[in-house]
């Protein structure tokens, strides 16, 4: 697995504490595809309920699960749990057909926090961020780049973006944060 984190060492603490962005530390990410009728079986293997409706997000003990399609879930867990999750789902395969793909190497996370986080994201995302429910997630587009956007709290968001686009999204958000800081 690729351990290089393209955004390692970067951080942009916003002056005045209005909005700040920072790279999220490395974690394990999976895409799970399974028939929604078998969601119960997958939930018991995962160890927590998987959200049944698109946009739903369930988090706890370092894990995040969000439903991004009718039969598609995006799972985030600490690096140390990767092998356990993979072997548990491999055992489930004998009874329930599904697909669990490790996409850890593909994506990086950027945390966007602060009272102006909504404003910062709204600058480049076309739907109404303020109306997004706290505790929800969706796949969307930021400045022509596909991302998965998670709203973990009123003022805390997480952007999951592909490695190759991460530099662009980081610089875009950094520029927006700077504008907010300067009051432009």
């Amino acid at each position, binding site marked *: 697995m690729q351990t290089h984190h393209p955004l390692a060492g970067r951080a942009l603490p916003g002056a005045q504490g209005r909005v700040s962005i920072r790279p999220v530390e490395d974690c394990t990410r999976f895409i799970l595809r399974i028939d929604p009728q078998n969601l119960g079986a997958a939930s018991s293997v995962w160890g927590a309920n998987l959200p049944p409706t*698109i*946009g739903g997000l369930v988090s706890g003990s370092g894990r995040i699960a969000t439903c*991004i*399609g*009718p039969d*598609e879930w995006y799972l985030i867990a600490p690096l140390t749990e990767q092998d356990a999750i993979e072997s548990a789902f491999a055992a489930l395969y004998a009874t329930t057909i599904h697909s669990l793909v490790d996409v850890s190497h593909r994506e990086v996370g950027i945390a966007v926090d602060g009272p102006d986080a909504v404003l910062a994201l709204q600058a480049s995302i*076309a*739907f109404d961020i303020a109306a997004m429910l706290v505790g929800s997630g*969706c*796949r*969307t*587009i930021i400045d*022509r780049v*596909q991302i998965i956007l998670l709203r973990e709290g009123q003022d805390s968001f997480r952007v999951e973006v592909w490695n190759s686009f991460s530099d662009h999204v980081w610089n875009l958000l950094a520029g927006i944060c700077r504008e907010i800081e300067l009051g432009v």
Partner: protein
Amino acid sequence: MLLIRCPYCEAERPEVEFTYGGQAHIARPQNPSATTDDEWRDFLYIRANPRGIHYERWRHMHGCGRFFNAVRDTVTDKFVMTYKAGLPRPDQAELEAARS
């Protein structure tokens, strides 16, 4: 920017998340080798080009990833309604209800 309602996400999403998928409700012939050349040509290439209500496929490419069907007015570019793939064409009464 247009907002398009995805029938799977059940939410209004921005147009940039979607891609157009051509005219809807075109069934592939059950037995292609039994069709005449003209029938096959019509299936492949001949499409309605109406002025007004048009039934078409869209894909929520950068969202849930699903294809669905939409009814759009080609004059005003406004979406009348969207519905899940596989459902029959909505009738006139349903379109009127969606408009009001």
